[in-house]
């Protein structure tokens, strides 16, 4: 009988302990959330607004669970620590002559937090209002500085040296349409014509129809010479567009001259196949077999083999690809379309100008091409790896406190980036956030972008 009561007592105590854990879990969660903020170098106003909701939920839960009131005392030390961090952040901002953040007057906020000003509406009153400052916090307060006339709001980056735009000007934005979107990154497949893929995407986005990237090839040497060398001359986004429009007064669609999604009968990439075609054509006669015919049809759909044979018999390999491209693009589109692309280069424009231009274009729901040293962007080494891509979006990363840009690459849907601070691959997920797939786009922090970027190009 006695043992039966002991057993009931054990069960009762265990049950009680299990329920009591709810309170300590609440405090533990709050502790985690506040630590996530205080462990950062900067605590932004927007982050605090989000945290305030967490705190209010915590308070309500503590009351409904009838937790021991001492839990509130424990939470106060967390809030104190957060408040100190906020004061520290405001002082950092003001030292950089930043006077406003997310529409909040920093000098006024500092005065409220230091107890010098009351009877003022303060959004974080519920969070900080009832918590007294300790002496050290008060000592660390500095006098507010004169308010800047500049409307552009800046905050410090994590390295505390380079000012960047705040979440105010770094609004979330992804610009896409039926022709250029997060599901159709191109693949330049073995050729070094990244500039042509960017040029094609700029035009495709503007015109709402996919423009052929390879039609815009323009590296000031023949295609034959270009593809023989792994380090071809490369090219220029704006020149590719200008030259093509000047020569043709119209554009060639991707469906007429494909630039990716090639299906070869034996393995080939674009450059390798063209190289082998040139080799065969040099003798002014093509040995046509079914596989060669199939491969030619993959690159130049619908073209008659006799057309190619006739050209080769007459001209050999000379300008063969140019001829075939031209042949494919006979059915031109957007006749009479005119545009003069604009370019900024690091030799005459500052990185800040480039970033401002990118922001301005994104704000106008447009996309921007840019040139960069890929290796500076991905692995911080000093080797050059000239590349061009297109920026299609922007977001503010609350964790790092920095603005990030969404880059659409032309290396397929792969994610080769070594992800880390300021560099993450973009993923397309389903509506439940599952089944995520890489999209061939990646997010890069503003500082990394500035470090690697050498120019921008866009359509006016």
């Amino acid at each position, binding site marked *: 009988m006695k043992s*039966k009561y002991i*057993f*009931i007592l054990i*069960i*009762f105590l*265990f*049950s009680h302990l*299990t329920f009591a854990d709810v309170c300590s879990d609440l405090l533990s969660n709050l502790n985690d959330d506040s630590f996530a903020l205080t462990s950062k170098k900067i605590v932004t106003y927007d982050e605090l607004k989000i945290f305030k909701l967490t705190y209010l939920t915590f308070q309500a839960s503590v009351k409904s669970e009838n937790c021991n009131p001492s839990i509130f005392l424990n939470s106060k030390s967390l809030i104190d620590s957060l408040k100190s961090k906020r004061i520290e952040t405001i002082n950092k901002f003001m030292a950089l002559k930043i006077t406003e953040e997310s529409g909040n007057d920093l000098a006024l906020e500092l005065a409220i937090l230091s107890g010098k000003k009351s009877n003022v509406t303060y959004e974080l009153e519920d969070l900080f209002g009832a918590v007294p400052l300790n002496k050290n916090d008060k000592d660390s307060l500095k006098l507010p500085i004169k308010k800047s006339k500049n409307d552009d709001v800046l905050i410090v980056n994590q390295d505390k040296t380079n000012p960047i735009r705040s979440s105010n000007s770094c609004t979330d934005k992804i610009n896409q349409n039926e022709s250029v979107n997060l*599901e*159709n990154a191109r*693949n*330049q*497949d*073995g*050729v*070094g014509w*990244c500039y042509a893929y960017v040029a094609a995407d700029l035009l495709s986005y503007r015109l709402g129809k996919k423009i052929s990237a390879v039609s815009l090839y323009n590296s000031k040497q023949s295609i034959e010479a270009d593809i023989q060398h*792994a*380090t*071809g001359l*490369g090219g220029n986004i704006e020149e590719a567009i200008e030259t093509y429009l000047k020569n043709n007064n119209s554009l060639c669609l991707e469906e007429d001259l*494909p630039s*990716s*999604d*090639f*299906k070869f009968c034996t*393995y080939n*990439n674009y*450059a390798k196949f063209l190289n082998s075609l040139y080799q065969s054509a040099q003798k002014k006669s093509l040995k046509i077999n079914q596989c060669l*015919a*199939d491969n030619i*049809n*993959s690159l130049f*759909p*619908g*073209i008659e083999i006799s057309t190619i044979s006739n050209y080769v018999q007459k001209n050999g390999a000379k300008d063969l690809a140019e001829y075939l491209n031209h042949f494919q693009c006979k059915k031109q589109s957007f006749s009479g379309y005119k545009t003069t692309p604009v370019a900024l280069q690091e030799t005459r424009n500052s990185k800040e100008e480039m970033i401002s231009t990118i922001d301005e274009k994104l704000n106008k729901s447009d996309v921007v091409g840019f040139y960069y040293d*890929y*290796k500076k962007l*991905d692995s911080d080494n000093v*080797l050059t*790896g*000239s*590349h061009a891509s297109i920026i299609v979006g922007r977001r503010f990363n609350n964790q790092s406190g920095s603005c990030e840009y969404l880059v659409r690459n032309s*290396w*397929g*849907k*792969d*994610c*080769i980036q*070594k992800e880390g601070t300021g560099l993450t691959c973009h*993923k397309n*997920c389903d509506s439940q*956030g*599952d*089944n*995520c*797939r*890489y999209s061939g786009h990646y997010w890069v922090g503003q500082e990394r972008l500035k470090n690697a970027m050498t120019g921008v190009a866009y359509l006016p």
Partner: protein
Amino acid sequence: MIKLFIFLNFFIINNVFAKPEVVKNKVCFETTFKFYYNGKLEFEKNQLCRKSYEDKMTFYISKSCVDNQCEILKRAKKPLEIKDYISNVGSPGFKLCFALDGVPQIFEFEDQQKKWQSTERCIFKNNDFVEISLLSREWKNLITPTN
């Protein structure tokens, strides 16, 4: 009364210490592959399997590669040097596929929601294939680019 206590506690313990649901990491289905061939749109029926990871990333592989049964997914990973891995010519993923003795290919397939997806795969002996993005994910930190 005791039974009620025991039941309640059993219920609580099971809910507090319940293991997370095991991620279903493979789903195979018969689908249609689509590609341009001879200037015409061609369709091909084939088996395709989905491999999902705990970080919610999903990749597509051949049926022969399910449960890491194919050679490429069983292969021991070691540092890999790839010439011009990142250069102004070509896709790095394609170069990785070559370096692993595979053949890269771009294709489209119809997923289980009947939506067409375009992607790249690396094809190996016996028609084993895995998405190039899966290879990049597993090998990228072992690659040393050389000039």
